[in-house]
Each structure stands twice: as structure tokens, then as C-alpha cells.
């Protein structure tokens, strides 16, 4: 067995260190967050008070609904609120 093959394998394993755990978890949570956001924005269309709260303080209202207000989710929520107004 060539030593160089073994060294190369070690080098290639090292080439893919883990991504930060929090980043991975946030990406894995996407489907749940998107469904939560769909539900919230859907309800806000027929609930003026909820809509007003979302417009006034988006981050807190999302958090209260169990949706972590990441940059992506906030941008998505703002776009959907705009398009539904």
C-alpha cells in the first residue's frame, strides 16, 4: 500500500471540517420554520390585530409564535407581508 494514498486520504478527510453546529441546526429547521411562517402569515390575512403586531414588531411576534427570527426568516416574512398587503 502506498503511503501517499494513506496521506492523501487523511488530507481529504481534513478538507471537510464540520460546519458550526448552530448553522446546521438552523438549516435543518427550515421546513418547520417555513410551515410556521406560512401558518402565521395565513392567519394574519384574516386577523387584523395579528397583522398589526407583525408589522409593528416582527421579531417578537415571530418568537412568540415559536419561529426563530433568523435573517432569512425575517426577510421572507417581510416579503410575504408586503405581498399580502
Amino acid at each position: 500500500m502506498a503511503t501517499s494514498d494513506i496521506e492523501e486520504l487523511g488530507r481529504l478527510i481534513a478538507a471537510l471540517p464540520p460546519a458550526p453546529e448552530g448553522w446546521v441546526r438552523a438549516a435543518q429547521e427550515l421546513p418547520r420554520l417555513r410551515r410556521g411562517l406560512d401558518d402565521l402569515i395565513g392567519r394574519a390575512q384574516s386577523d387584523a390585530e395579528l397583522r398589526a403586531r407583525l408589522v409593528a414588531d416582527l421579531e417578537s411576534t415571530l418568537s412568540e409564535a415559536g419561529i426563530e427570527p433568523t435573517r432569512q426568516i425575517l426577510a421572507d416574512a417581510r416579503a410575504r407581508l408586503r405581498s399580502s398587503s
Partner: protein
Amino acid sequence: MGDEPTDAALVARCRAGDDAAWAALVDRFARYVYAICTQGFRLPQHDAEDVFQDVFAKAYEQLSKLRDDAAVRPWLAQLTRRQCIDRFRETRRETPAEELEPDGVDDVLDQLDEALAVRQGLARIGEPCGEMLDRFFARDQSYRTIGEELDLPAGTIASRISRCLEKLRAAMEDSGALVGPEVG
């Protein structure tokens, strides 16, 4: 082969709304996307985080547009590449588009493709070898830490790593993923 689903099978399950499959898909490609951002495009950590999240958000939204489920890896690579260039474009407006990619990015991406094939090999050789090699090479853990974490005598870790590398090499050869230079 191990019990790992193929890329195509995972994508099909994601498209059917299977959250566990999505989590597995993210887990499978997180290191790859991260490495393209930080090694290929040398993004600082805060930019890399934004790109990383944008890539998976776009992948989630656009998965239905993927024509070949088995081609998810190159598709994600392309998505990541575009997002990295967009990030550069935001901060370097005066730079011509063709100069936004760092020198050697294609070579780095080729290496990362190889590295991903090796990770699939790690999954095939099973535990504790896969985890031991990952901890030593990718997580840069000491023999002592690996020994403590895996409940193994620290003095045996070096020889175990060596045996695991041999096992990995054999698995890669069996799968045709490792081709000796004399074969080319």
C-alpha cells in the same frame, strides 16, 4: 455498501415533505457547502454563515426544479458558488464580475468533490472507524480526547487510526472511488 440512502432517494423524500430526509440532506452536504464558502471563496465566518443559510434556503425552495435528483451535489455546489459571488458583488461593486472568483477556486472545488467521496467512504466503513478518522483529521482532536470520547485507551488510538485508514482505502478501492495513478 452501508445503509445510507442515495442522494437521489434523499431528494425524493425531501420533495415528498419528509423533514427527517431534509435534515439528513443538510447533514450530508453541510460540510461541503461550508468548505466551498470558507476554502473556495475564503469568506469570513459571518459572510459564510449568511451564504450557508441562503444556500439551504434556496435549495429548500427550489428542490422541485432539480431535474436529476442524483445531481444534487453539483447543483448545491453551483448554488453555493453563485451565492458566494453575489456576496462579493455586494461588497466589491467596482470589481468586474469575472474577477470576483478567487484564483484557484476550480481546483479547490475539485478537491472538495474528492473529499466528499471520501466522506461517503467513511460512512461505508462504519463505526468506530468512521468517527475516529473524522475526529482525528477533520475535527483535529488529540489521541487523548478521542480515547476519552470513544472510551478507548489513548495509547491504542494511533494504531487504530492507521488500521482504519487501511480499511477506508480498501473500501474506496472496492467502490471504484480510489483509482491508483498507474490506472489512469
